[in-house]
């Protein structure tokens, strides 16, 4: 039959999507806790420690507080857009996780269950596309609030994200020339046999990292929510869970961009210093898949810690500094990196060896 549908396949993917969304939300929840904890220990404080052991229940309390708050929609705001804004921010944050390979594959009764929602051959382009949609969450929220400060913040945030996306794309092109594929799973599999990509592309990784900070609106690039300049930026008029969605979207973004960076430059789910294939033959595919997933999560955790570490160290850029860094430094650097990489690849293809 032409239209025979593989129901097990659909169920399997639905379960995987639910699990990934659940994990992203839980990780985002505990990122808020970790953020406060990291901030505290870097400032010689203790941080949240009242709710549960080490304040482990603090995110629940925060979430409950946000749910209980009065929901205010300003009279002169555009109601539809006002509600759409946080939803869009959350949607784009979640959508990116679809193409990230979380682990190799499980082996359930002879059936290969891939731990990636969609292994599309343009995976990284999809990520760029969805991430650039994230600007709408900020822009619509800031516009619909009918507030000068929000609008200013939204305009600033939008131009920042668009500027840094360019450098991000350019820095990725160099990596693309090395790997020759856009599929994230293939990129990971290549790194399993060779060295990790950040060794071949240190400058590219550095630019990508800076741009990831800018894309996530994290300090030093949090110009769109500069508390002391614009009150609260684009989510000033938001309250209750709509505000929670914006804050949450930021943390989900952080999680996903950490996962993407780990996948692209640090071998993704590859377990470092271990030959994964022989390990899998020794201990079984399922054990291997779980350990690989854990390995990815450890890498992601390190990146998330790095995000927080930077946030509590570096002060915010001024707007002109931000634009100068983006357009006059990062884009030329990315272009030079791209040309140098292309040059070396060309030489190697013509029989030049180190």
């Amino acid at each position: 039959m032409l239209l025979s549908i593989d129901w097990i396949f659909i169920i399997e993917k639905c379960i995987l999507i639910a699990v990934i969304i659940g994990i992203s939300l839980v990780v985002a929840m505990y990122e808020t806790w970790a953020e406060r904890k990291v901030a505290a220990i870097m400032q010689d404080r203790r941080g949240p420690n009242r709710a549960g052991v080490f304040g482990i229940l603090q995110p629940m309390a925060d979430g409950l507080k946000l749910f209980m708050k009065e929901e205010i929609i300003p009279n002169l705001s555009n109601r539809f857009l006002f509600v759409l804004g946080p939803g869009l921010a959350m949607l784009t944050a979640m959508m990116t996780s679809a193409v990230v390979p979380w682990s190799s594959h499980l082996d359930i009764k002879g059936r290969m269950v891939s731990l990636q929602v969609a292994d599309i051959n343009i995976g990284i382009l999809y990520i760029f596309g969805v991430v650039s949609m994230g600007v709408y969450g900020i822009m619509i929220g800031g516009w619909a609030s009918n507030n000068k400060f929000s609008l200013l913040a939204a305009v600033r945030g939008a131009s920042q994200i668009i500027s840094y996306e360019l450098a991000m794309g350019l820095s990725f092109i160099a990596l693309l020339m090395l790997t020759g594929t856009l599929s994230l799973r293939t990129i990971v599999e290549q790194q399993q046999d060779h060295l990790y990509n950040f060794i071949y592309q240190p400058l590219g990784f550095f630019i990508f990292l800076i741009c990831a900070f800018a894309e996530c609106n994290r300090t030093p690039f949090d110009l769109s929510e500069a508390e002391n300049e614009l009150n609260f930026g684009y989510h000033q008029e938001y309250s209750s869970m709509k505000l929670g969605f914006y804050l949450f979207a930021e943390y989900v973004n952080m999680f996903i961009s950490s996962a993407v960076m780990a996948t692209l430059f640090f071998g993704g789910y590859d377990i470092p210093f271990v030959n994964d294939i022989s390990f899998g033959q020794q201990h079984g595919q399922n054990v291997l898949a779980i350990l690989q997933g854990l390995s990815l999560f450890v890498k992601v955790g390190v990146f998330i810690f790095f995000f927080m570490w930077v946030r509590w160290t570096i002060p915010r850029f001024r707007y002109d500094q931000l634009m100068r860094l983006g357009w006059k430094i990062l884009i030329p650097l990315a272009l030079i990196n791209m040309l140098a990489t292309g040059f070396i690849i060309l030489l190697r293809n013509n029989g030049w060896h180190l």
Partner: protein
Amino acid sequence: MQSLTNRSKQVERKPMTLWEKMYVPAIAKGMSITFGHMFKKKPTVNYPEKQRPFSPVFRGLHVLNRDEEGRERCTACGLCALACPAEAITMEAAERLPGEENLYREEKYAAKYEINMLRCIFCGLCEEACPKDAVYLSETFAPANYNRTTFIYRKEDLLIPDPKTQPAEYAKAKGNKL
């Protein structure tokens, strides 16, 4: 312009070097500083679980003392009220009746003794003025409350527990001051 002192220094505004313009070394230095702070000892005291001891000269809530036999020392002479710069203390005296010798040490005692803790500045002058060592400042402080009238401490609130009938409470209220 002539400078008033010879300590003024010209501000240096020379352009940044290439190394400084890169910012990355400076950022790395800053990051190492914040990372080092993670392993520093935290000065915070976990308050309700752990309490920092007061200094020996701490002046807290007032206590009306008793002597070893549990009799009130205060004779309502009014010297504390006179010494009080904040005028927080009021009292009314009464004469000791026959048969009350086990309650009051001298012939006169304070029938009413009130300290307004909102007026009190905890200077300790009442403690110094008292000729009978009856009033002194303990090692506790006034707890927060919703009601202003609760801050007027009456004699019952201030009196130390009887050392004969409640020795444990007496020792606790007495603290390490006397």
